[in-house]
């Protein structure tokens, strides 16, 4: 009951956020909309029994990445988005995106796997324990983990180099 309400609520919020992201002319508004989507998704993660990921989602995505975006928008402060239309292919692209969605929906509806997922609730409602996750992260996925950490380091350096004023 309550999960269902929560799901519908969050799903609606997420979709609304996404639409606002497209609609808004003001980058900040788009950013806020995106934050909304992320928070909604975080709650959905809770519903899916992944509290850790949910927390990380908020901390890193909403709390760090999006703050960066907002910060940059404020810093540059270019105001409203300018509406030009040089790209002929934008509209077809959008239509294609719709096709993509349709495809997936159709597949979920009609394919055997899709139906298998559709009917019946998800796997037993055991919360993915953070301990298990960390074990996995630091044993099975140790190398990718280290790799990403190095990637982050490089990203930091790259950002520094790029943003530094040449003088």
């Amino acid at each position: 009951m309550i999960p269902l309400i929560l799901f519908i609520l969050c799903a609606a919020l997420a979709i609304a956020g996404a639409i606002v992201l497209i609609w808004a002319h003001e980058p900040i508004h788009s950013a806020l909309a995106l934050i909304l989507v992320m928070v909604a998704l975080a709650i959905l993660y809770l519903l899916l029994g992944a509290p850790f990921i949910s927390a990380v989602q908020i901390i890193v995505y909403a709390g760090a990445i999006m703050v960066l975006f907002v910060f940059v928008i404020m810093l540059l402060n270019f105001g409203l988005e300018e509406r030009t239309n040089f790209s002929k292919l934008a509209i077809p692209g959008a239509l294609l995106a719709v096709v993509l969605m349709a495809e997936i929906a159709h597949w979920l509806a009609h394919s055997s796997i899709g139906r298998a997922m559709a009917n019946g609730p998800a796997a037993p409602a055991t919360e993915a324990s953070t301990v298990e996750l960390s074990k996995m992260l630091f044993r099975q996925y140790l190398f990718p983990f280290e790799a990403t950490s190095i990637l982050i380091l490089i990203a930091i350096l790259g950002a520094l180099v790029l943003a530094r004023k040449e003088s």
Partner: protein
Amino acid sequence: MEFIYQHPVLVAAIIKIAVLLFIVMTALAYLTWLERKAIAHIQSRWGPYNVGAHGLLQPLADGIKFLFKEDITPPVADKFVYTLAPFLALALGLTAIALIPFGPVRGPGSVPLLGQPAWAVTDINIGLLMLFAITSLGVYGVALAGWSSNSKYPLLGGLRSSAQMISYEVSLTMSVVGVVLVAGTLSFNELIEKQSGAFWHWNVFSVRYGGVPQIVGFLCYLTAAIAETNRVPFDLPEAETELVAGFHTEYSSFKFAMFFMAEYANMITVSCLATILFLGGWLSPFPESWHWQWFLPGAGLLALAAYCAWNTVAEMRGIARLQLGVVTLLAGGGGLLCLIPVVAEHIQGPFWFTTKILAILFFYIWMRATLPRFRYDQLMSFGWKLLLPLSLANLVITALALVLWPLVKHG
């Protein structure tokens, strides 16, 4: 009624939230009073004195003032965001507190409410992460306020604050990770229970789990927390002398009040967190076996009552005498109530928790009264070049200790 029995969790939560909200709001109000008084006395002034005895009614007056002031919204401002910002700030500030356990949720001292522990609104096993999640959103309040005002000073203030808060959030988290490593849990209750014993088992001093005393982590945390809450000496975003009032220059009336409360709510939150992580939360500093400590709350309140009584008789005149008398009675009554063993037993947790929080809050106020403000570049270099490396070093050393300790112990 039916609903209650179907969803005890929900109902209990709602009740607890309501109560907590009331308490916290009051606490916020009187925190401002405390701050003003403390600073005043440190600077050898009297501070608020006229509204009520010792200015006890000052917060009430302020509140009323804020409510009835005109609420100006700059025409060039981005209305929606301009309105959203303060709500966001306050909401997040208060939500964070919902995760804090003010007393034991199980075992002796815990109080049941519809089968739910009463001393904590929630008890989730990654409370710490969730807390960080919520506080990490706090920056939006400030940043958006700064941006939406659509004027120079607020924008600069907003930029500063977002930069500052992001920078110090890193150190804040890092300094806490040491404790998490030692305790091996993210749940507040487990974090606290693992520190049980006496004060030398608190994470600040403890070597119980083969870690190192988290004293460095504690100091880093306190510093970063001050910056996180935008208070002196890190109150760059609202530096009067430079930016008039920083991000909330354009705000007035109740929206301003909300920012104000949000700031104090954040203070309380970080103090709670410090208490839980480093100072053993609601645990008493003394070994459980010392049962006389149960009477400390009562004794403390009675002492307060005694002081108030003397003060009433000695100094107060007229209406003030009446007001202080009421306070005396309240304190005395509360003290006597707390002397009843059952109550005493169950009041222990909240009592110690509050005491510790007050101590830390006083420390903050003290800082504010003592230290001058940083320059912006100093602030940044301090955060990135000193605080972060320090907290990282603390983390690394703790981790090493945890790895090496078993080897040392078992040869």
